């Protein structure tokens, strides 16, 4: 594969993020305006100084008009992108490539979702006319397939693995409790999560991401121009997207203990960024913990833990806020909430804060010499995934 990347050619110079919440009193337009204006203030750039816009939303709007209208973007290109729950990261990726190509000096990537106006709990895809043979399972049920599969493959007791999953949720609640923007700010002991009734497979409601409205935005420019707007920019080290073929739902060799698309995207992004040992090189990772088994398996797919050992690393606190490699320091999808199109950029927002020392003191990652952060964002289900991995750093190489 010829994936050359754009390492150190693009910089993030400003970001904004709304609270993620059930925004009964805020519209999609309100969320877009709040995130975009916040990002502009962060970069000390006027909206009129941004050359092009990428608008990530999964189900809340259908075109670039959904962003151009509320922000009154005059005479500029605005493109809506969608790639399931990886939509926000996809908007970022398009904006970065546009700037790297030389087509524009500056670009904004904004992700926004208004999910709570639907009247139902959970996320609900709107139906595309089809032959009626497609599955109607919830995402929770699809991801629930991974826990028993993992337990069987690696010989982990199911009850112990159930605790491991709860431990992941509990960690993310711990982190989210220290995040004023997060949807859920209450700590939750793993033991209590284990006692909750199952809603899908072994999973309880507390194994599932929060469902929230929200928006997040990033402004990018050519790396060499970054200091015109920002004293401490983040440099884009690697961006990768891998879309699966749905092989896991076709191929009996797939066993639901991994998401190959995520491992492939990570390998590509690491190659671009020069990452050889993510566990020791990354200062933090924001990963797509849509359900607790997802985060468990991602620790292996992203190369943080050898195969079959993530469960014990979780128990050992490796990924805790003060651990060897903090994961989801902002609370993750679990606690921060998951406004689909915004989540990928929300992850970058946390990397933006943490690597630059701007995170609130109560959730700062350990002070190390590590300068890289990772975001991982996926859409789909085990067996049929679209995965994004991005690596960002505070140091610009040569």
């Amino acid at each position, binding site marked *: 594969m010829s994936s050359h990347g754009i390492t150190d050619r693009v910089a993030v110079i400003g970001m904004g993020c709304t609270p993620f919440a059930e925004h009964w009193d805020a519209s999609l337009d309100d969320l877009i305006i709040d995130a975009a204006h916040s990002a502009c203030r962060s970069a000390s750039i006027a909206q009129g100084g941004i050359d092009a816009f990428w608008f990530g939303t999964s189900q809340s709007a259908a075109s670039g008009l959904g962003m151009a209208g509320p922000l009154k973007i005059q005479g500029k290109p605005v493109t809506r992108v969608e790639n399931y729950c990886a939509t926000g990261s996809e908007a970022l990726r398009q904006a970065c490539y546009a700037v790297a190509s030389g087509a524009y000096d500056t670009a904004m990537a904004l992700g926004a979702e208004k999910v709570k106006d*639907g009247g*139902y*709990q*959970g996320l*609900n895809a709107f*139906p595309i*006319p*089809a*032959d*009626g*043979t497609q*599955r*109607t*399972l*919830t995402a*929770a*049920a*699809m991801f*629930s*397939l991974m826990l*028993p*599969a993992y337990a*069987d493959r690696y010989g982990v007791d199911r009850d112990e693995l159930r605790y491991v999953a709860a431990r992941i949720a509990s960690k993310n609640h711990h982190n989210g409790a220290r995040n004023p923007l997060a949807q859920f700010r209450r700590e939750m002991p793993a033991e209590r999560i284990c006692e909750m009734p*199952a*809603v*899908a*497979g072994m999973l309880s409601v507390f194994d599932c991401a929060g469902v929230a409205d929200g928006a997040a935005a990033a402004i990018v420019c050519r790396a060499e121009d970054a200091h015109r707007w920002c004293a401490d920019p983040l440099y884009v080290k690697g961006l990768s997207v891998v879309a699966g*073929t749905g*092989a896991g*739902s*076709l*191929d*009996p060799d*797939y*066993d*639901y203990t991994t998401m190959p698309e995520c491992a492939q995207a990570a390998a590509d992004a690491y190659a671009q960024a020069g990452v050889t040992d993510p566990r020791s090189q990354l200062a933090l990772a924001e990963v797509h913990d849509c359900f607790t088994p997802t985060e468990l398996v991602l620790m292996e797919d992203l190369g943080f833990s050898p195969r079959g050992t993530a469960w014990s690393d979780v128990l050992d606190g490796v990924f805790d806020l003060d651990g060897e490699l903090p994961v989801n320091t902002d609370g993750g999808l679990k606690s921060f909430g998951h406004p689909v199109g915004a989540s990928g950029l929300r992850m970058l927002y946390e990397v933006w804060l943490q690597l630059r020392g701007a995170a609130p003191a109560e959730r700062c990652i350990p002070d190390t010499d590590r300068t890289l952060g990772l975001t991982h964002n996926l859409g789909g289900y085990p067996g049929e995934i679209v995965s994004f991995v991005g690596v960002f750093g505070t140091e610009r190489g040569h």
Partner: protein
Amino acid sequence: MRGVISAAGYVPYRRLDRSEIAAFFGSGGGTGTRAVASYDEDTTTMGQAAADLALRAATAGPEAVWFATSAPAYLEKTNAAAIHAALRFDPAVSALDFGGAVRSGVGALHAALAGRGRTLVVAADARDGLPAGADEASAGDGAAAVLVGDDSDGPVLAEYLGGACRTLEVTERWRIPGGARSRAWEERFGAHVLGPAAAEAWQAALDASGVDGTAGIDRLAVTGLNSRAVATALKAIGAKADSLVDPLINTVGNTATAHPALLLCSALEHAAPGETVAVVALADGVETIVLRAGEAIADHRPVAPIAGQIAQRGSLSYGRFLAWRNMVTVEPPNRPAPARPSSSAANRRTDWKYGFTGSRDRSSEMVHLPPARVSQKGGAADDMDPAPMAHSTGTVASFTVDRLAYSPSPPTVFAVVDFDGGGRVPLELTDVDADEVHVGMRVVPTFRRLYTADDIHNYFWKARPVRDGASGAEPPGASL
């Protein structure tokens, strides 16, 4: 020689214990059980199941499918066409509905026996009645399929000797379209008119078939919705007690339109070469059919004998029965109901949606479910053969119980199924209790109605456990 080439009955998995009705209401119900179509079954899917069982034992397919039911899934649209598609018949095979009347089931069978060509007669019924009423308890759901043809079409299990009918215009049992239940006049009146008609038709049928008197009939099935009329007819015929075929009322219940064919199938499963078998059906008069088992009956090995299907049953609570029959409305999961399937999209994929046929890549041999144009292994394009999977057996590779998803009967039990000989597909499980599912469980595909939206029934395939019906053992698992 013309007669029955193949025959099979279908009894749905769930049973309602009639004593549960009295336990709930304080009266009604009675003893024994009745068969209950699952929430995802209708007369079309049950008919398909019976037809599939009948055809598995036959060497030649039909030239026509005739489908009879008093509970059609659709009016105006031909229900036999869905059975036709699910059995992957050639478009040149005719598919016709015999609609509405309970008598249409035995009538279609009689017409096929007296007619020409290879005709697959399918009769199915799903019977409702108001709670605590006699119909609710005595009725049953089920189907039967009989392949009728000449000896040039294959060995004849039972030769058609002759028959007779009597037709009465009488308002004895009736229902208007859309009515939730059928109505009946005083039972004694029905016995008064149907009894003598049965005696006349019986004698005419014996004369037509050259059988010397009632004593010459070895196996006799007399059926009708009016049990007093049935008793009167039996008396008028002078039936020998030891010739009577088990009417299946205590186990299955009266499947009305399907019942004459179901009892015929049951009789043929026990008949010896040379034995005479007669069916007398009372509905708006009488239809009488007389057959003689041929030498081929000795080799008749039903794929799923009716007795075995009766034995392999799962219990169903009365509350869930009422919910399944729309007699009570239960709170659904707070999720949007599914959208109607697209007719054009479904039509393009008829062989997948109805025929459960995927594709097999010629170069890699990989089976693709649903069918694909480009292979997952090797990427070969447009180089695949059809891969029919309806008769495959698979193994549960992984499963989950989804208590959040929309379902007409939550929770949804879903499994990733790997088929013997290749092919994986995630399928919903049915006729199963959530706590009996396990990795490694053996399952087979079954044609079901997933849901109905905008009055469009969404038919597709699920998987159900392979159960040991031959042993007659009580299946494991908790009751629903």
